[in-house]
């Protein structure tokens, strides 16, 4: 079995705005092994989120090849991409993106809605995850009743509910105080120790230190 989880070759991404074409990614090459913890840093506007969108199958590259688990995915249909996202990839966002009218537990269960039916076992698993992330007493609270750190932990539980092979986090600590940041990073570090592959985008070098590899993205290219 291959050790490589994903492989990007000469990935380019352009956006057109009126008549002007902006090349945001100018030929990205990247290999990520299973179990790796990769941090991507770089100045704002450098294309980090654009790259993460492509890695997360939320967006397609303009050109280049993307192998995910040895499968070319840059040419898959939207439905096939949705299925892959559902089964293989968990997302954690800077702004949490929890559904405001659903409880913590319901938010965690959301990805299962698009896999099939939600049964009692799934509910126990969601509760187990929330329990593990220190939210045992918060499973029936709405996002507005939780602190930022707690909301981000709910979002992590949601990313984990489908046992993904890749966890993507875009500035996961960007909206948190330093105490909550540390807690969230402790969780991510622990998950990585258990074998989960993680790619994190961050500004914060303290946060990046937790990773075992750091790449810097500037003006659409990795500079180191």
């Amino acid at each position, binding site marked *: 079995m291959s050790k490589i989880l994903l492989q990007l070759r000469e990935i380019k991404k352009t956006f057109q705005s009126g008549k002007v074409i902006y090349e945001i990614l100018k030929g990205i090459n990247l290999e990520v092994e299973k179990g790796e913890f990769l941090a991507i840093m770089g100045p704002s506007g450098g294309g980090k989120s654009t790259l993460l969108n492509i890695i997360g199958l939320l967006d397609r590259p303009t050109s280049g090849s993307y192998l995910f688990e040895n499968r070319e995915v840059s040419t898959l249909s939207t439905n096939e991409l949705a299925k892959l996202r559902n089964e293989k990839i968990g*997302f954690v966002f800077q702004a949490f993106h929890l559904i405001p009218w659903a409880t913590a537990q319901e938010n965690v269960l959301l990805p299962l809605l698009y896999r099939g039916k939600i049964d009692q076992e799934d509910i126990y698993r969601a509760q187990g995850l929330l329990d593990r992330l220190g939210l045992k007493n918060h499973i029936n609270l709405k996002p507005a009743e939780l602190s930022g750190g707690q909301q981000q932990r709910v979002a992590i539980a949601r990313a984990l509910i489908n046992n993904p092979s890749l966890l993507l986090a875009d500035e996961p600590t960007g909206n948190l105080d330093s105490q909550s940041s540390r807690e969230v990073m402790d969780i991510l570090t622990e998950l990585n120790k258990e074998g989960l592959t993680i790619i994190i985008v961050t500004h914060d070098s303290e946060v990046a230190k937790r990773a075992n590899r750091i790449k810097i993205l500037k003006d659409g290219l990795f500079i180191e």
Partner: protein
Amino acid sequence: MTLITLKLSFGGIFYKKLRLFLSVLGIIIGVSALLVMNTFGESAKVKTMQEIETFGPEILMVVSGQARVRAGRAIQAEQTTALKLEDAQALRKISAIQLISPLYTGSSIVRYLGKNISTVVQGVNEEYIKLRKFSLIEGRNFLKDEVTGFKKVAILGYKVKRELFGEEKAEGQHILINKLPFTVIGVLEPIGVDASNQDQDDQVLIPITTAMSALFNVDYISGIFISVYKPELVPLIEKQVDEILLKRHRVSPKEKGFNIIKAEDILKFRTEASSLFSSLVQSISILCLIVGSLGVTAIMLLSVNERRREIGLRLACGASRRAILKQFLIESMVISLWGGFIGLFIGLLGILVFLPLLKYPLVLPWKPIIVSTGLTIFFGLLSGIYPAYKASKIDPAILLKGL
């Protein structure tokens, strides 16, 4: 589907309740109007049928004066003295006529043991009750001798009997009509208002001869009731009656002092009027529904725009575009149906209040309910298509950018 699946799929619908209510206001109004008006239509039809039934398809009415069928009722515009008792006798020789009765209508004070009521007194002959297919709940019909012999006998309408005698027996009792003593020989069953717009329970029947001489002292009659053997013969008889009367009165058709009315005329006018009314109401209600569903569309578009991130998140979590499309189509439909059911509820309340108030028969409006529900589903779907399409086109990449 488990509860949690349902909630995660459609929990967003009830998140903003005031807005939800405002968005379905148009649908509520449209559906309740549709239901109430259609039910009124149905009820009016039933009412007309009931009235025609009491009038009878085989009955012709000759009335003096320029009678008109107005608002679906026979209305005597102006009384003339052209019609005489002899006219009624002359019409008897038409062979297809089964029963015939002259009619004089006046109003009088009727008195019994100190109780006075003002009511309609109708002078008729012994064929009248049979002709109108009225039944007696007490006593008997007039005898021929009583009619020819100017006898002071009376048959009471149901209401008159109740008011004068209550539960007591009326037959054989003596009443005063305009101070003249009459013997009660019978009481009519409850009949109600018929197509001639007269409350048949609020009347007293007496022999035509007595009415014309002793009571009202006139030499003319108000009308003639005719029944024929078969309803198909009505047009033919109408023509013959017209000819005979014109000849007897020696007038041209333009200046004739009588008019012939049949059940068909009343029915025709009624259905014309009510179909015009109901098509007007239908268009207005459907317009309401369209405006209402445009409201739902607008609110759904707003909602889709507001919930961009939720939609993006669902896509990121693996929702297919079809799943999003379906979710928002169902949301619009649920919202419309919700409004539709409130509309049905309000409409039913309105029906239960207004039909009895206007003395219309209560009908169970199955057809209007089914039609309204069907239209609501249809418009709900229609109003959801564009917002759902917009929702399914949202780019999940927005989640990582611009927040």
